[in-house]
Each structure stands twice: as C-alpha cells, then as structure tokens.
C-alpha cells in the first residue's frame, strides 16, 4: 500500500491524479443523475400505499447512504493522514467534510418532507432522522474545528483526530438512538420498507445511489484540488500551471 501510495504523496502528482479522475466522475454523475431522476420521478410505478410521495426515497435513501459513506471515507483519510503522516490525506479529510455535510442536510430535509404527509409532522424523533441530525453535528464540528485554527497544518491534524473520534462514536450513537427510539415509541411509525422492493423501483434507486456517490466523488476531487493549490500556492509547479492554462 505504501509503495502504491507514495508517488501520490507528492502534491503535484496528487493534483494530476485528481485531474485525470475528475472527468470520469463528472460524466457518471451527470448521466446517472439525469436518468435516475427522470426514471424515478416519471417512469417508476407509484407505491400502492404511499402513492407518489414515495418518490422522495429516490433522493432520500441515496443521500442517507452517502452521508454515512462520506463520513467513513473521511475517517479513513484521517487515519491515513495520522498514521502515515500524509499531508494530502489531511486535505482529503477537509475536502470531504463539506460535501458530506451537504448530503446529510439533504437526507434530513427530504426525510422531513417525506415525513410530513406520512406522519403528519415535519419532524418526528425517528431513530434514523435523529442519527442523521447527530451526524450533521459531527460534520459541522469537524468543519468548525478546522476553520478555527489559524495554522492550517495543525487544523488538518486536529480535524483528522476529531473525525476518527467521531467514527468510533458513530456506531455507538447510532445503536443508542435506535434503542432509545424503540424504547420510547414502539412500532407506531412505519419505516421505509426496503425488504420487498420491486425491481421497477430498485433499479432507479440503485442508479440514484451511484449518481450520488459519483457526485460526492466529483465535488471532493474539485475541493481536494483547491486545498492542494491553496497549500502549495508558493511552489513553482503551481506557477507553471498558470502559464500552461
């Protein structure tokens, strides 16, 4: 792993790698998202119980999955940053965090908008929504810690430590909230029934999950490029970049 990663420890190589990967991610995002949204909104059959309101799951479920996924990738980057002292991994932590926070916010908003017609209230203390809200707090914590530091080198490491602490706590939080929920509310709330999902709904959902993942990838790459440029802006290779473009 070390041997494979090593060339990308150099900032300019990492920058180039981002540039190479970016178009692929962008194309996948655009194609999957356009097809996924049109399919989900217009062509997928309506749910026999929830009617057309269920179409919200085509963005709610992907954003909920990606909010967790982005947090775990952020934590992995943080571990790499602290164990192997890779500066670029620190930058990746900071590049992912805002994207993850946005996806988490989407999961919350769509969850509320789906909940209003289903439960009659914008917000209920459902286990998933509550976990999602706490996840948003964790993201915001990482971001505000990073921005509070003057010295960005220390900021990156502090944010990485917090990300790791968060990811250790996340399963505990999730489990405790789930347990708390069953204790206090029982089974009065119908959750998304994901067990018996019809293929006509499953495929557009998968497509949307891929689209969200690719979107998170795309924006993370753009932000990672920004962070690398920002940190390396006095280096000659950044100057050469300007002359070329």
């Amino acid at each position: 792993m070390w041997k494979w990663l090593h060339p990308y420890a150099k900032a300019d190589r990492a920058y180039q790698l981002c540039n190479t990967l970016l178009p692929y991610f962008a194309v996948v995002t655009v194609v999957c998202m356009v097809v996924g949204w049109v399919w989900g909104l217009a062509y997928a059959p309506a749910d026999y119980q929830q009617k057309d309101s269920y179409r919200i799951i085509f963005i709610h479920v992907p954003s909920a999955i990606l909010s967790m996924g982005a947090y775990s990738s952020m934590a992995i980057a943080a571990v790499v940053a602290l164990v192997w002292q890779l500066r670029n991994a620190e930058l990746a932590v900071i590049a992912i965090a805002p994207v993850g926070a946005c996806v988490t916010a989407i999961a919350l908003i769509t969850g509320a908008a789906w909940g209003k017609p289903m439960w009659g209230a914008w917000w209920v203390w459902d286990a998933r929504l509550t976990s999602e809200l706490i996840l948003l707090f964790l993201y915001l914590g990482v971001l505000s810690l990073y921005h509070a530091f003057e010295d960005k080198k220390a900021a990156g490491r502090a944010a990485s430590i917090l990300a790791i602490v968060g990811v250790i706590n996340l399963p505990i939080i999730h489990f405790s909230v789930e347990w708390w929920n069953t204790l206090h509310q029982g089974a009065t709330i119908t959750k998304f029934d994901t067990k018996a999902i019809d293929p006509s709904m499953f495929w557009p959902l998968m497509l949307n999950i891929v689209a969200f993942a690719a979107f998170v990838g795309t924006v993370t790459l753009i932000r990672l490029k920004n962070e690398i440029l920002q940190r390396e802006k006095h280096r000659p290779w950044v100057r050469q970049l300007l002359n070329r473009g």
Partner: protein
Amino acid sequence: MQRQHSYLQLFSAVCKKDLQLAFRQRAEIVNPLLFFLIVITLFPLAIGPEPGLLARMAPGIIWVAALLSTMLGLDKIFRDDFHDGSLEQLIASSYPLPLTVLAKVLAHWMITGLPLVLLTPVFALLLNLDSQALVATVITLLLGTPLLSFIGAIGAGLTVGLQKGGILMSLLVLPLYIPVLIFATSAIDTSTMSLDYSGQLAILGAMLVVAIISAPIAISSALKVSVS
C-alpha cells in the same frame, strides 16, 4: 542526578498538582456545583411544580444539568498548563503522555464529577425522586461522569490552543455525549418502574472501559497538535 522510572510518581504528581490548584481556588469546585443547582431550580419554575411531573422528568433534568456543568469545568483542564508552558514540559518529559493525561482527567473528575455524585441526594429531594431512583441516579452518575470527563477532555485538548475554544468545544463534545445521556437516563427510568437496569449499567461500564483505554491516546495526540 539519578533518574528513577516510576509511573506511580508521575501519576500522583500530576494528579496532586491539579487537586492542589483546585483547592487553592475553591471557586473552581464550587461554581459548577452552583450552576448545577441553579439549572435544576430552573426546571420546576419553567414546567410547573407538580411532584409527579417532576419525578418523571428528574432523570433527564439531572443528567442534562450534569452534562452542562461538566462542560463548564472542562475548558480549564488544560488551559493553564497550555498558557504557562507546563504542557510542553509534560510532553518533553520522559514519561508517556497518555499516562499524564489519564492523571489529569482523573483529577478533573475528582474536582467536578465526584462532588456532583456526592450531592445528588440533595438534588434528588428537590425533584421528588424516590429512593429507588436515587440509588440508580447515583450509580449512573458514578459511571457516567468519568465518561463525560474523558470524552470532554478530547474536545478540550483539541481546542486548548484556540482563542475562543470554549464554545467550540461544547459543539464538538455534546453530540458525543448522547449515548451516555440515553443509557444513563434510561437506567434511572427503568429503576422507577422497579425493573432490572443492570443492562444499561453494563453498557455504561463498557463504554467507560473503552474510554479509559482509548481516550488518553486521542487526548495526547490532540494536545500535541495544539502545542505545535
């Protein structure tokens, strides 16, 4: 100059210093307790004094108040050492930093957590808790407040170098307190129904063990970042 290598000496020295300092400025011990008391007084005034309602809400009130008053003292745990340079001396000592940190957190708990546990019977009277629930409250506080100190110290370590670290620290730490809050209050709730609450206590205990082992490592790396 002969050096001996005694972890016990280091541990007691660090612990003793913090306790000594706290006893010299007694406000450090008294103020969080007063804060705790005032918060608890506010609740009956806000929601009404019916004994039944208060008893029902007491676990939640006590725990939220405990959480907030721990936060008050947390800001101080590394701040003085950071500003006078003692933290650098502790890092540059030949002892492992996590051990030093463990001693400091323990001292912090003895200053803020322990008095809270000892005074719970008084607070329980104010909130109309019966004796069964009182026992449960004391046990959960005994297991839970050290956890609060450990988790909080991570946040304190990360923010000690910042000018306005106090409020940021609360933002970082409070979400991490949620599991402690849930299990502790549920243990007390269960006890009021005369049911067995050893399960919740076991989970709290397990979390405490994990925190004792892993939090000092996280805290020391956080402190190293803050010092750099």
